[in-house]
């Protein structure tokens, strides 16, 4: 049976050798190197955001704690939220996209390789500009930066400006990246890869790109107006001069809610790739899963004011946004049912990517149902801005993003490095993360129901608040240990991991058709695509003894790799 693994058809002809050493990274336009730089950079930001989270939990571990000053505490949750959203989850999806999108559609690079490099460097500059504020005065207005609190009168120092420029720089990075993704997917698919044969991860990247293109200009406008209000005497959000603070909230959340789906849709895509491979079954209802992605994206653009149920609004507006938010549960539910149906009657192999995938489903569904609870605006009046909401969005984002990102790391690490990650360490990491995560956030629902608001640096020990918060803090550290085990696993496996070979999982998609790691030009010959699972077709052809049909090996000029 081992013979059914096809030999990769790679020669890397007519490709200039890349420079060596640090110049190989700094000057590169190769989507794989850029992808790795994205992944490493964002993972470092993830660890920084994680340390900030642990400090927050440490402060809240006991009632009326004096460990951190209110100023430090406000800066920490602002930096934690901003880092996780703008410097980790959104760009790490672009990192996976950079590395795997061209491989999965059988392209030799992205459509605009130099633009791609620019995207990465803009992201890094955004992160540096933001974290540089640590040396003068970090922002304290929360990751949402509501005026008037973020205005010149209440945030005099430059922290908020650093935050605004982070939004601009990472936003520009994402915008250019999205244009690149879109152009690549639209134009550079392998012969025979129609829209109905596009891998589901690529589908989600397509929708991710469109959502970013639609939503980012709005937040860019909002923070530019804030910048002008702060420094140039305009009054967009100043109620005393005819402006309106609520305008900012509308603009921010018109971006902010699609942003939530920008963060989790590619995660959905990773899960839709991982589950079929490890249950040895095609994805259940490919068209429904792809269509649900598009429907979620559309609905995500018309639900933003459910973040604003407590600001002065007419009842009819509240009702509209409640019903629209309800609707989003339908395509999301469809996806979950399809994933479980994919496992159904398969042969489920308990490998680490699959376990992270199942942990994702379990956690994400919990965040989904509390989302419906919060969509009911009278109930939201009781729960808004409490720890119930904190628990809810960590269930969706840690469930939807982090668990799927870890599934992606374990699934694709062999392709990127040529080495396998340790399975026992991976399973241990998954188990500890799952326990730690639930320990941290399940109890936070009750903390919120007991009336504890978000973003307070101290609380009084009323009822069980002290105990619940202590449990949550312990859970956060357990969660941290789980993440640390994966970090150790990655560092260790880079040197001593088992050699992966081109296709260690018997994957379904084209990235497994080339060597691990792939050569600079990815493929010399690109097979004709006949189904959603081209690698299955190729394996079958090899078993029959007929070599796979290739396109002519001559790459078109726009596909060629320029070093």
């Amino acid at each position, binding site marked *: 049976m081992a013979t059914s693994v096809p030999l990769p058809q790679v020669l890397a002809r007519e490709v200039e050798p890349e420079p060596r050493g640090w110049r190989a990274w700094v000057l590169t336009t190769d989507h794989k190197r850029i992808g790795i730089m994205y992944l490493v950079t964002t993972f470092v930001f993830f660890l920084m955001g994680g340390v900030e989270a642990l400090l927050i939990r440490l402060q809240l571990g006991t009632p009326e704690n004096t460990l951190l000053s*209110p*100023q430090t505490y*406000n800066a920490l949750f602002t930096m934690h939220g901003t880092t996780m959203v703008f410097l980790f989850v959104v760009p790490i999806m672009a990192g996976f996209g950079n590395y795997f999108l061209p491989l999965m559609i059988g392209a030799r690079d992205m459509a605009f390789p130099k633009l791609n490099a620019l995207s990465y460097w803009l992201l890094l500059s955004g992160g540096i500009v933001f974290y540089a504020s640590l040396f003068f005065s970090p922002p*304290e207005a*929360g990751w949402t930066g*509501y005026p*008037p*609190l973020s205005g010149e009168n*209440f945030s005099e120092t430059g922290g908020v400006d650093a935050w605004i420029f982070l939004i601009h720089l990472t936003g520009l990075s994402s915008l250019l990246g999205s244009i690149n993704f879109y152009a690549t997917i639209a134009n550079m698919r392998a012969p025979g890869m129609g829209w109905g044969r596009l891998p589901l991860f690529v589908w989600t990247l397509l929708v991710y790109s469109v959502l970013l293109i639609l939503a980012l200009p709005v937040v860019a406008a909002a923070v530019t107006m804030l910048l002008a209000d702060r420094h140039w005497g305009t009054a967009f959000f100043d*109620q005393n001069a005819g402006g*309106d*603070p*609520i305008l900012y909230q509308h603009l921010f959340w018109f971006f902010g809610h699609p942003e939530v789906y920008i963060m989790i849709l590619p995660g959905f895509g990773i899960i839709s790739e991982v589950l079929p491979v490890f249950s040895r079954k*095609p994805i259940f*209802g*490919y*068209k*429904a899963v792809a269509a649900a992605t598009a429907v979620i994206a559309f609905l995500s653009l018309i639900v933003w004011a459910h973040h604003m149920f*407590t*600001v*002065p609004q007419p*009842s009819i507006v509240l009702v509209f946004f*409640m019903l629209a938010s*309800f*609707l989003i*549960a*339908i395509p999301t*539910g*469809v996806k*979950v*049912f399809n994933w*479980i*149906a994919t*496992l*159904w009657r*398969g*042969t*489920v192999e*308990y490998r680490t990517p699959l376990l992270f995938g*199942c942990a994702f489903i*379990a956690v994400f*569904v919990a965040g989904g*149902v*509390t989302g419906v609870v919060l969509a*009911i605006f*009278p*109930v939201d*009046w*009781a729960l*808004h*801005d409490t720890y119930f909401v904190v628990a809810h969005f960590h269930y969706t984002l840690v469930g939807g993003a982090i668990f799927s990102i870890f599934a992606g790391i374990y699934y694709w690490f062999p392709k990127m490095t040529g080495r396998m990650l340790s399975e026992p360490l991976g399973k241990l990491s998954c188990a500890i993360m799952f326990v730690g995560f639930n320990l941290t956030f399940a109890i936070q629902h*009750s903390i919120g*129901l*007991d*009336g504890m*608001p978000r*973003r*307070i640096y101290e*609380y009084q020990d009323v*009822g069980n608040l002290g105990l619940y918060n202590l449990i949550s803090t312990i859970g956060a550290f357990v969660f941290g240990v789980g993440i640390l085990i994966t970090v150790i696993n990655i560092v260790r496996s880079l040197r001593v991991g088992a050699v992966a070979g081109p296709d260690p999982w018997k994957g379904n998609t084209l990235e497994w058709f080339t060597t691990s790691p792939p050569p600079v030009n990815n493929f010399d010959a690109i097979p004709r695509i006949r189904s959603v699972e081209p690698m299955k077709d190729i394996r079958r052809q090899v078993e029959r003894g007929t070599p796979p049909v290739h396109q002519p090996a001559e790459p078109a000029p726009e596909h060629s790799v320029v070093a």
Partner: protein
Amino acid sequence: MRSPARILIAALTASLLFPATAFADFFSPDDSSGSKNAEAIDTLYWIVFLMAMLILVGVWVALLYSMIKFRARRGAVPAQIRGNTRLEIGWTVGAALVLVVLAIVTFVMLDDIRNAPESGANGVDLQQVGQPTGTPNTESVPPSGRSLRIQVNGRQYVWHYTYPTDDDDQPFNNVFTYEELVVPVDTTVTLEIKAQDVVHSWWIPALGGKMDAVPGHTNWTWFKIPAEKAGQVFSGQCAELCGRNHANMLAHVRAVTPEEYEAFIDQRKREIEESNEEAAEQRERIENE
């Protein structure tokens, strides 16, 4: 032999039931006894919560079952199923139906939560207490248009309350308090919520949902504390990040009988008059010097 066993079983049942009732708070808003709208929100929460748990547990069971039942075994062959249109339409429609039910339940409950009822017979006489200037938002008052309208003003980091008085021509002499709001029981109290610096959020969990205080806007909510709650104090705190001391922007509502309320207003009026007179004397002294 049997009776100790019975006692043991009874004790076990009791010990299981006790935390079950104690756990009601664990799963739902803590205290909603202060006003009918808070109670209605609590009821609505419970209905939605139970439906959500049912779905959640269902999905978890299906997930675990498929993971365990269909784990890879020697000789097992995966069924190459690509989909099932009927099943997929079925669960899409099923999900939609659940949401329709939720929407209907919400609309049924909404009236009790959003619309202010009339004051009760044991409440304060609203024709006596006067009204603040400005016409109320028609949505925020009971059908008769009569409620005790109190202005709540959020500022870093304290709540300021202005009570209605019968001498509206001198709004500066209106009775006011900080942090603690004193209200009569069995009276519909309408809050007109404003902010003067940054965004705050008014929230007393036992008296209903929170409402943001946004500079340049007037938000509103209402509550009506039952007569038997006279003497109780309901507490809450600002729920929207408003700066470094956000954690200590507290709010209390003290429920009193109508007589006590009138006495309280009279006393505050006297205090304000006295300090006004004192200020006038001081002015005179300074001018004469």
